[in-house]
Each structure stands twice: as structure tokens, then as C-alpha cells.
């Protein structure tokens, strides 16, 4: 029980830092620690995400980091898209899709790494320019 609560707390930190729901930690906490089946763990994870996303969004709104109109559009269209995705899941090969999506995630990760390296390089160039001047 304590392990599950700790994993939940970590999921929240991840959520606040990175804007994800936290399902990546909720699902294993519910399935592996609390013994739910995979289907029930994924469904229950959605419930756990609600208070996290609501409180996180309110807090981020106060920090000035939420575009409310865009968030509402994204949320409503996503909710429709989920229904489409569930229907497609019955037609398409899950294995191939998982691998394709994993490749997409890695490509995106590489983009973020490049941004990190470039920003750090710019900062260093700025610092050196200041030191020279």
C-alpha cells in the first residue's frame, strides 16, 4: 500500500513537471502493486489522473502557463479521437502500431535533446562573450 502511494506521489511530480497524466506510473502501481488486472488498472488510472490534472492545471494557470481555449479544444477533440482509436484498435495490428508509435516517441525525444544541446551551447557562447567583453 505504501509503495503504491509513493508511486502515486512520483506520478504527480512527473505530471506537474512534464504535463503528462502520470499513467506511466499509475498503471504499474495499480497492476503490479495493488493486483488489478491490466484492463482495470488502465481504467482506474484514468480516475486517478482526474484530480491530478485538475489541480495541476489550476496551479499552472495561476503561474500563467495555461492557454484555456487551446486546452479545451485539445481536450474535446481528444475525447472524440479516443472513440475513433478504440474502433481502429479492433481493425489494425497492435504490434506494428506500438512499434511505429515508439519510433515516433524516440524521434521526438531526439528533437528535445537537440534543443537542449543547442540552448546550452548558446548560453555558453553568451557567457564567453560577456567574459571577453
Amino acid at each position, binding site marked *: *500500500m505504501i509503495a503504491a*502511494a509513493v508511486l*502515486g*506521489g512520483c*506520478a*504527480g*511530480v*512527473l*505530471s*506537474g*513537471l*512534464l*504535463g*503528462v*497524466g502520470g*499513467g*506511466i506510473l499509475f498503471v504499474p502501481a*495499480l497492476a503490479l502493486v495493488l493486483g*488489478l488486472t491490466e484492463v*482495470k488498472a488502465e*481504467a*482506474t*488510472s*484514468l480516475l*486517478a489522473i*482526474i*484530480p*491530478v*490534472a485538475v*489541480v*495541476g492545471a489550476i*496551479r499552472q*494557470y495561476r503561474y500563467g502557463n*495555461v492557454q*484555456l481555449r487551446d486546452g*479545451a*479544444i*485539445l*481536450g*474535446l*477533440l*481528444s475525447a472524440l*479521437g*479516443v472513440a475513433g*482509436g478504440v474502433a*481502429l*484498435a479492433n481493425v489494425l495490428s497492435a504490434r506494428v*502500431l*506500438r*512499434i511505429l*508509435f*515508439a*519510433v515516433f*516517441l*524516440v524521434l521526438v*525525444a*531526439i*528533437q*528535445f*535533446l537537440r534543443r537542449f544541446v543547442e540552448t546550452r551551447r548558446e548560453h555558453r557562447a553568451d557567457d564567453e562573450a560577456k567574459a571577453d567583453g
Partner: protein
Amino acid sequence: MSEGLDKSYMLKLAVIGTAAGVFSGLLGVGGGTVIVPLLVLWLGYGEREATGTSLSAIAVIAAMATILQGAYGNVDLAKGLLVGLPAVVGVLIGAWLQQRVPTEVIGLLFAVVLVAAAVDLVLT
């Protein structure tokens, strides 16, 4: 902002929202892994604005999806609260921390989570 620009912006926003939903329904991955990077890399959002706006969208998605899954009897309320309530404390800490971390570090951490999610997708 010109009308043409606004139209292409709204179109991109619509594509991001729909894609996030479709992949959630297809693969059970969170909308955040689609929404945050596309807002940053495609719509030019700052990292903090992307994560904050993503959370507001996820609140809508999770609420609707929970109602659907609840109707199938798949939601365990007590266990959901057991992990969800500590996570509310966590999200306040995470959001507080995020305001004090350089934006490129947020991107770097996001890259790590994306790779972890990719590994998880391929292995399971």
C-alpha cells in the same frame, strides 16, 4: 494575427487533439506524450505553457474516459484514490519545481520519459 494564420493554427490544434485521442484509444498511451511535444515543436509553445495547457486538456479527456470505463465496471474507486491522492500532492511539488528549472531541462526530462514510454510500448 491574420485570419489565414489563425486558420492554420486552429487546424494544427485540431490535428494535435485528435491525434492525442486516437493514440490514447489505440495504444492506451497518455495524451500528454503527444500533446506536449507537438505544442512545442509544431505550434511554437514554450515548454511550461505546453505542459500547463496539456494538463487542462488531460483533465477533460480523463473525465470523459473515466465515465465510459466506469460504465463498463472497470474503475476501482478506492485503489484509484489510493494512488491519485498522493499524486495531487506530487503535482503541486512538480509544478512548483518546474517554475525553477530552465526550460531546456524540462525538454531533456521529457525526452527521458518519452524513451521510457517507447521501451515500454515495444516490450509489452
